[in-house]
């Protein structure tokens, strides 16, 4: 008998609602660049550098940033598709991949990923129902039952199983293939789904269909999402909290409304100002930033944005700024808005406000 019928208790939930589903501490990945006759390490790509954040149960955390900012590498490190140089993962209170914690495989059962390229992430020689059934079968479900589950999942992502179950990936459109990838990610009943640019390759009318589907699935299965995208509008639409990355580091994080209405980091402001307007009478007149993001090989010392920042001063080259509450905001324990910037004037956009 269910004593608390109003709470849909997940038997896998260990620490309760207040405990983050995933906590990431000091995640770092540097790739060596080799060259010369002895193939020695000649440089280092600091793809992800000391990244820490947590994902709360039931929320959607958006990670936004431009190419080379480390957002996709972060996703791959979380799934352990890449081994981090350092950093800890804690999944619902259990340290991952260490003694007395849970194994990487146990974590992967609860954490699944959807990639950008819907075609290359499916095996071209398997029908879509075989692809979806593969993981449950490998984890011990009888083949017949796994296929039955695959067909149920196909129906839930909006593809009629009688019509689509026996098709091969090349027989589907991009939007349909991405629905199959979502179904496959859900086949192991994960608690956290990482969506790495999952709608970026789709046409706008199809993107909207898939975003609606993701919202419905999240409610139905009480999922938590980590939503990675370069599309500022889509991240605003889906996320509860947002993490802004630049050259391998987190520059700003906070609740979506606070970040989008009141961005504090000069980079975040420039990023938002670069968004094309939908109003032909208010076209962008000035470039918010010049040049491209620098190469993450040997990034600038101190604050990595300083080379493109209009406010940069000597201190920015010397000290790495830490994430802290903005100068004009109190520390909010429940929904902290944090920014990694030394300069109060830069955080305020160069204008001093007096409340």
């Amino acid at each position: 008998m269910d004593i608390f019928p109003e709470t849909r208790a997940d038997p896998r939930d260990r620490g309760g609602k207040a405990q983050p589903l995933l906590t990431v501490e000091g995640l770092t990945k540097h790739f060596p660049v080799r060259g010369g006759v002895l193939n020695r390490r000649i440089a280092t790509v600091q793809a992800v550098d000391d990244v820490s954040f947590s994902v709360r149960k039931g929320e959607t955390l958006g990670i936004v940033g431009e190419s080379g900012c480390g957002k996709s590498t972060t996703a791959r490190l979380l799934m352990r598709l890449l081994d981090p140089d350092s950093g800890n993962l804690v999944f619902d209170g259990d340290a991952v991949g260490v003694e007395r914690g849970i194994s990487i495989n146990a974590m992967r059962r609860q954490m699944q990923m959807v990639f950008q390229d819907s075609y290359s992430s499916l095996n071209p020689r398997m029908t879509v129902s075989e692809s979806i059934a593969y993981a449950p079968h490998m984890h011990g479900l009888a083949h017949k039952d796994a296929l039955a589950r695959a067909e149920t999942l196909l129906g839930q992502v909006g593809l009629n199983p009688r019509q689509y179950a026996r098709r091969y990936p090349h027989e589907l459109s991009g939007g349909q293939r991405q629905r199959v990838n979502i179904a496959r990610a859900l086949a192991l009943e994960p608690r956290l789904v990482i969506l790495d640019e999952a709608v970026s390759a789709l046409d706008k009318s199809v993107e909207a269909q898939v975003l609606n589907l993701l919202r419905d699935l999240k409610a139905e299965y009480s999922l938590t999402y980590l939503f990675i995208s370069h599309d500022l509008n889509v991240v605003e639409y889906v996320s509860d909290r947002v993490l802004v990355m630049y050259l391998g580091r987190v520059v700003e994080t906070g609740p979506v409304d606070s970040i989008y209405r009141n961005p504090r980091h000069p980079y975040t402001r420039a990023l938002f100002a670069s968004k094309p307007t939908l109003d032909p009478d208010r076209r962008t007149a000035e470039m918010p930033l010049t040049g491209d993001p620098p190469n993450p090989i040997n990034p600038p010392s101190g604050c990595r944005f300083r080379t493109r920042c209009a406010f940069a001063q000597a201190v920015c080259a010397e000290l790495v700024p830490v994430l802290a509450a903005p100068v004009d905001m109190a520390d909010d324990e429940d929904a902290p808005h944090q920014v990694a910037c030394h300069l109060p004037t830069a955080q305020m956009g160069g204008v001093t406000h007096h409340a």
Partner: protein
Amino acid sequence: MPDGNFAVPLLAVEDLTVRFKRRGTDVAAVNGVNFSLARGEVLTILGESGSGKSVSLKATMGLLPDYAQIDGKIKLDGRDILSLPRAELAKLRGSAISMIFQEPMTAFDPVYTIGEQISETIVQHEGISRADAGKRALELLERVKIPSASRRLKNYPHEMSGGMRQRAMIALALACNPSVLLADEPTTALDVTVQIQILLLLRQLQQELGMAIVFVTHDVGVAAEISDRIAVMYAGKFVETGDVRPIIRAPKHPYTRGLLNSTVHGGMRGQVLQTIPGTPPNMADPPPGCAFAPRCAHALAACVEQDPPAIFPAPGTMLRCLRAADLVPARAKETDDAQ
């Protein structure tokens, strides 16, 4: 003919159709496209993948493979360029009309420096000396605001960042002062902070040089930033054409409305996105009548029987929809629930 006749549009495309017939398949990619472009005008072709927007541009530039069957007329300054012999067309390409692409890495030759490739084009078209062409190349790189231009001339394409390469490609396209620039999704592969720089650069160059631009994109926001006029393309046809403001603010065709409604923009949190049901038609087997009818909430029996003719509700606007008169021009937000 530097200035030509004012009554003759700079570029006029009439009843352009393109079919790809090969190995038993017959894909009708472009099905009767008409437009004209005045000097200094920016026309954007807005559409989703497979709508035929890139194929229309490539047909205009004469870049389609031999098995493409092209019909209609493409007149540049009154001259039909489809009937020109290859050698004549090659003279026009790059000098009167030129093109920039989505992926500059594949558009450049990887084994020559940027400077060599720009000079080569100028030498070929204008027959001036290499040294003079080199000087022009330097001016061009400065014009597209590439920092330390003289050093950059000696760069190979892979040594540049994506934004720099796109600037270099624009410099190459402008090398012989074309009067028409065709731009095929030139900012799609770029980061958002770089995209806006390229859009601003194109806008500025267009005003300085008085070029006309045909800009192809799938992004409504980019179209709003750059266009004077917008043509919305679906299944190989323009379904709605007009000035940028009415198209963005009060679209009339159900497809244009659906496209604008399903585009996520700022401040839409918590709203259910209105979508266009279904997928675009397979152009190897297009539906009868209006190609959008199977996905259209307003479709009538007549829409399936008859291909809607182009109507011209106001000067400079075109609409292909049998229900145009019944559908009140509403703001994008208030329309169509797709079910």
